[in-house]
């Protein structure tokens, strides 16, 4: 177990380093481009040269990269070109906002998906199964940007029940969270539900479930003690990967509702070539993704004794 932990953490660190290097090369590989980005389009060639020298961009790439890694490791994320202040000052608040959005989504989506998936997979081919399956296919087919438009048309424009943007301009407002969370849950839950259903349906046809039934156990116990744990092993990894997908959805959803989170920050930065913000956003996204993968692997091992004890 400890061995696996060390290996996974090592791999995680390695991936972060590789990703960091790619981000670094793409954004800061060419010192001239960096200087141009910071000083703006009207700066002159000499000014660029001076800036490059002053900021140490004339050093070879490996040295600069090590320096950069050191900076990131000690929490120095550089200064935003666009806002003219350290990235640290506003980055964490944006990330926190996204955390709230993603957390709320997860909290609603996962239990809902697991419950529906188990209910559908318990009796494969039944009406209950077909209804849940078709419903989840339909909701996963509506991308976030489409459901944002459709829900806005219905609940904001026609019914006028909900606010159409979530910029929180006048302070925190829970009403403004309803639409973004709904959009993310609608798109995301179907996939987990369908994986859970498939896994549950497969488990229900296994011989050990037959053994449990023919042992004379009540149906409820067969489901709860024998089927559920085995059926949840596969969806568990999916849920962890879903975190990665959720981050993609978050970018679109935040943009759709003008929510001040990490996604909108990344988009603005990307459009304005605000390299240090881009790097910070990229690293944060990859960190979350890799962390969730690692947790998924460890959890999988924990749930599955066949791997745990080999």
């Amino acid at each position, binding site marked *: 177990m400890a061995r696996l932990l060390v290996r996974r953490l090592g791999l995680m660190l390695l991936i972060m380093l590789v*990703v960091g290097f790619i981000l670094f090369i793409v954004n800061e590989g060419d010192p001239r481009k960096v200087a141009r980005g910071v000083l703006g389009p009207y700066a002159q060639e000499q000014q660029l040269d001076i800036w490059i020298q002053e900021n140490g961009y004339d050093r070879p790439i490996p040295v600069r990269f090590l320096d950069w890694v050191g900076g990131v490791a000690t929490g120095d994320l550089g200064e935003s070109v666009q806002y003219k202040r350290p990235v640290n000052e506003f980055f964490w608040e944006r990330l926190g906002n996204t955390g709230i959005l993603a957390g709320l989504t997860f909290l609603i989506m996962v239990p809902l998906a697991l419950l529906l998936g188990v209910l559908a997979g318990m009796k494969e081919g039944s009406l209950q199964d077909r209804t849940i399956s078709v419903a989840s296919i339909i909701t996963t087919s509506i991308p976030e940007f489409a459901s944002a438009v459709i829900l806005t048309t219905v609940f904001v*424009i026609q019914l006028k029940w909900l606010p159409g943007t979530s910029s929180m301009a006048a302070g925190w407002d829970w009403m403004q969270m309803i639409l973004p969370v709904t959009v993310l849950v609608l798109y995301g839950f179907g996939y987990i539900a369908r994986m859970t259903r498939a896994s549950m349906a497969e488990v229900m046809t296994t011989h050990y479930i037959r053994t449990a039934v023919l042992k004379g156990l009540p149906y409820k116990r067969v489901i709860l003690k024998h089927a559920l744990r085995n059926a949840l092993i596969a969806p568990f990894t999916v849920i962890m990967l879903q975190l990665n997908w959720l981050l993609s959805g978050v970018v679109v959803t935040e943009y759709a509702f003008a929510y001040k989170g990490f996604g909108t920050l990344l988009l603005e930065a990307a459009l304005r070539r605000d390299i240090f913000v881009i790097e910070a956003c990229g690293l944060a996204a990859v960190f979350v993704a890799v962390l969730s993968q690692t947790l998924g692997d460890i959890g999988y091992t924990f749930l599955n004794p066949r791997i745990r004890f080999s």
Partner: protein
Amino acid sequence: MSQANATDGTVSASDRPKGLFERTIGSIVLLKESPVGLVGAVLVTIFFIVAIFAPLLAPHHYETFIMPMAAPLSTGPNGEFLLLGADLRGRDIFSRLIYGTQRVVFYASLATFCAYIVGILMGLAAGYFRGWVDEVLSFLANVILSFPVMVLFVLIITSIGASGATIVFAVVFASAPGIMRIVRGLTLDIATRDYIAAAQTRGESPWYIMLVELLPNARGPLIVDACLRMGYTTITIGALGFLGLGLPPPFPDWGGMINETRTLAMGGFWWMPFFPALAVSLLVLGFNLLADGLREVSLRD
């Protein structure tokens, strides 16, 4: 092969090799068993027909000015019927949707196809050779898969600029590792079969074994996955358009149509972004239902 041995007199109908046409008919007949899959097949077929015959089916050119902000079912100054209304610049939304179909179907197919070629080759190599080939390819796949897809797209497209080629490249880059993982898993499984050992013991080359002996037997799950992936790619292309990172105008793009008009929607012009959103959802639904139906049918055999 096809020269049936007449002297035997024992060639029954089931003995003759089946042509591509017969097999296609066969799969459609099979799909009849799954009503859900059939609905999906019909939806996808409609969209593909629309894409191919877009110029014939669209009542107007996508840039023709007719009547700004016309509501659905209204009539233009010269008697033009505007089924789904018109946008801010007076263009027929229905016609723009039809041309948009062409664009999204073309790029989604092309990008998925390219991603599959890359993913299949990588997956076959990783699963068949194993060892260091597998370790290197799997690590690469892990690195790419650890980027959230949309973040990856934003980074790629903002650093090399938006164009059709960029979108295809970005989709290949982001999807190939996932396809590779599936192919690798199937390869690891199929490689243990005796017929692979039989091919090895008669001295076939590794790539012959992978492409001729192995790949055809992995086609079932791959076709299902390809359908799903067409759906994802459609969503991706739409989302990029929505974020303003899609294909440059004036050629209509569903995501772009939504993005351009969604602020207007707040003012009551709801139909402008609504119909493109509906179109995207229907196309993706078609792919997903088709995939589900195909999976169901293949499991029954």
